[in-house]
């Protein structure tokens, strides 16, 4: 199985650790991983700001970079959702469609494609899971509190395989952290308040680490934790699943 | 062109392709094992009161315990209960003459277990304002006249014509001030339903 590793731009630039952990974890599980080095960004920041018409360049680049893989895996639910829903190319419509069907977010790739049932990881800490909205409500990585449906959590089931890890309960299981792409600066007041409230829920329940399948939300919460001088850290779920 | 025709033309022009109505029959099958129990639980939870009674005399006793028709105006629209009322209902008086009614006794067609409501139409009320203007409301239904859900309620109503009808579920209420629940917003401060065994 040949997997193309899709590393979102801000992960590449600010959180290489998350991408390294993703790569190592996949290799550990016997997957052949290739990182196409000319990749940049999925185009979501522009599209969510109303500039989807400017994302043609990103789309073309994405198709160039990720053609010919069995799967494309990324440690970001939000970017995966964007590709799944919006990747298109008027000149290569079939190819665009094929690629958008092959893109997987890391945790669901582990649970649904690789059908991982155990992991050699150990992480002896209290961990709070942040359900990033695009991964949860968009990609259905876990059940949603609004719906009357059986409950499940793909990230949660993976974290449960990690030795000595203690998951904490939250008061609001799946409230948005307020990052929202450009929302975080355009609507600074509400965005910051949402972030503070989300972080407070984790702190109140004794989290030592906040994790999730989307680094952007974690970056937002990290920004708040650091400003507050908190010792609590954020870690991408791949880093925990890859911890020894 | 009149506004009516303009609106209809614009709607006709802009409406999407025809979509069928969904199949809703399965909802009509939903029911409770203990319909009266469910009714009682729900109505109590929303601030109403339920008395299961075996005969009219039991109702009268309960009414008399709380309301002395000599002192306050008890209005009866239930012939069987006229002797606990201040006076029998006069045919269609002006609604404003009802302003001092303390307790109104009415019959309802049936109750709905899922939400604790009763269904009434104006024929049962003399005047539409009765169940709103009174300070307290009491309705009588018979135990066989309970349906499970709103789906069944509308099956029962069918296409019967009425000038005005309503589901009434509990006392009038509001939580507009800081979400604290207050019973007796504009209408009755309490609602009692007598479920008469039949």
């Amino acid at each position, binding site marked *: 199985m040949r997997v193309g590793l899709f590393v979102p731009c*801000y992960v590449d630039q600010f959180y290489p650790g998350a991408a390294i952990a993703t790569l190592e974890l996949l290799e550990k599980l016997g997957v052949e991983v290739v990182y196409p080095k000319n*990749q940049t960004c999925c185009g979501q920041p522009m599209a969510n700001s109303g500039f989807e018409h400017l994302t043609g360049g990103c789309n073309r680049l994405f198709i160039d970079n990720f053609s010919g893989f069995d799967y494309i895996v990324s440690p970001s639910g939000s970017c995966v959702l964007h590709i799944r829903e919006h990747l298109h190319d008027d000149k290569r419509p079939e190819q665009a469609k094929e690629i958008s069907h092959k893109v997987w977010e890391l945790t669901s790739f582990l649970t649904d494609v690789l059908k991982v049932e155990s992991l050699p990881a150990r992480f002896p800490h209290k961990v709070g899971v942040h359900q990033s909205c695009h991964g949860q409500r968009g990609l259905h990585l876990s059940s949603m509190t609004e719906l009357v449906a059986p409950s499940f959590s793909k990230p949660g089931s993976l974290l449960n395989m990690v030795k000595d890890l203690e998951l904490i309960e939250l008061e609001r299981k799946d409230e948005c952290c307020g990052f929202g792409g450009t929302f975080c600066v355009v*609507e600074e007041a*509400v965005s910051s308040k949402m972030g503070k409230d989300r972080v407070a829920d984790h702190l109140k329940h004794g989290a030592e680490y906040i994790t999730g399948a989307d680094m952007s939300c974690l970056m937002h919460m990290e920004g708040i934790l650091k400003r507050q001088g908190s010792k609590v850290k954020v870690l991408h779920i791949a880093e925990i699943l890859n911890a020894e | 062109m009149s506004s009516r025709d303009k609106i209809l033309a614009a709607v006709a022009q802009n409406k999407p392709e025809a979509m069928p109505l969904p199949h809703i029959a399965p909802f009509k099958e939903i029911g409770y094992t203990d319909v009266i129990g469910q009714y009682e639980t729900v109505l109590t939870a929303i601030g109403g009161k339920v008395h299961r009674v075996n005969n009219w005399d039991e109702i009268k006793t309960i009414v008399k315990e709380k309301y002395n028709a000599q002192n306050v105006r008890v209005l009866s629209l239930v012939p069987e209960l006229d002797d606990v009322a201040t006076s029998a209902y006069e045919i269609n008086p002006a609604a404003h003459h009802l302003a001092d009614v303390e307790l109104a006794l009415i019959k309802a067609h049936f109750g709905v277990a899922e939400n604790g409501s009763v269904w009434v139409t104006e024929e049962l009320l003399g005047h539409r304002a009765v169940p709103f203007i009174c300070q307290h409301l009491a309705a009588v239904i018979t135990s066989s006249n309970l349906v499970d859900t709103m789906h069944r309620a509308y099956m029962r109503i069918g296409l019967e014509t009425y000038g005005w*009808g309503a589901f009434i579920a509990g006392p*009038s209420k509001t939580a507009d001030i800081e979400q604290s629940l207050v019973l007796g917003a504009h209408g009755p401060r309490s609602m009692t339903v007598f479920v008469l065994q039949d």
Partner: protein
Amino acid sequence: MEVGTKDHAELAEIFNKDEERVNWHDETLWWIRAKRDKSVHQLPEWEALREAASNVKFNVLSHLNTYLEQFEAAAKANGVIVHWAADAKEHNEIVHGLLKENKVTQMVKSKSMLTEECHLNEYLATHGIEVIDSDLGERIVQLAGEPPSHIVLPCIHKKKEEIGDLFHMYLGTPSNMADPQFLTETARGSLRETFLTRKVALTGVNFAIAETGEFVVCTNEGNADMGAHLADVHIACMGIEKLIPKREHLGIFLRLLTRSATGQPITTYSSHFGKPREGQQMHLVLVDNGRSVQLGRKDFRNSLKCIRCGACMNTCPVYRRSGGHSYHTAVAGPIGSILAPNLDMKKYADLPFASTLCGSCSNVCPVKIDIHDQLYKWRQVLVKEGYAPTGKKIAMQVMATTLASPTLYHAAGKMGRATIKYAPFAVNNKLNAWYKEREMPAPPKESFGEWYAKNKK
């Protein structure tokens, strides 16, 4: 209320100056969302009900003109006088005309978001007509000289002490009296007088049935009925999208409406108005006001399925932390943000951006409106129509160019990590906004790309 030309972000910033109050507002609404959850989880058929309601509404939209005609004919046969208003102005004129005809200068009105949308009260005030809102929450905001901040809970933004002050000023209650029970009792007394003396009552409409010509009004307080049954003239106003085909469909909608709104199994009163009382006039005003235009917008027509339950507001993390008034439109929150641009793109260009697109709104919506997808689509439309600020346009262009070129991207990245001037989420020249309450991530010594080149060839 002076909202003036401030946009949602600015108004939200003002709202957020008082953090304690934001917490209180957020928690109150979250509590209602929790009540909703508790109630809907008692119905295993909940999702099927939503699906059915959504499909009934799709059917309505696709046959709307036929249903309107069917409804009109049936209502007329019932003795109801039917009026049609193309826009807010015509709606207001029709209502005013009826008041003049009946020679009255006072009217009692129960909750109707449509009349808020049409600014009926202001219009009538300029014509010397006094309107008293009878819903307690609406009465409170009316006394405060504000519009409702929520479609179901009009004064959810007001603390009881503030309400106590208003009542002290206008209804003569003792000062510093803020007990909800006492205040409600006072309003009850004052409004009872109003109900008994008004000749004309106006109500909204929750559902109108094409098959029977009747319409249904839902309240908890009983104020719509108190008004309508005590008045000689009942005027009911509704948007044309409120129709449903058959009476039996009420079974679905009445099960969904209040469970979604507040978690109650049904409103205290669900009144079915078929015919006028003997000697009473019953008027019904059918209002378009942009609805037929929205119907023609393929991506946005589904917003017309809305039954105004307010669930999308209660669940919205942005609404809860910015308050209804920050949306500067009659219907606030997520649904308001997809309805308002239809009426005026320029004025409401900010609203579709007042969201993180988290999608919770679409999940609670009892008629399954794809609210967050429509917010996304409105953004595209608004930008294309030229309603994006110029600074943002240039920044986005730079970003698109950079991200479309691996060379530029890698150069920008290096520079970015050194100076932290570059971040995809912070490109609209308001970079400092991030810093107000948040730190930037610490720049790593190398990007993943660089690490990969070194370690994995």
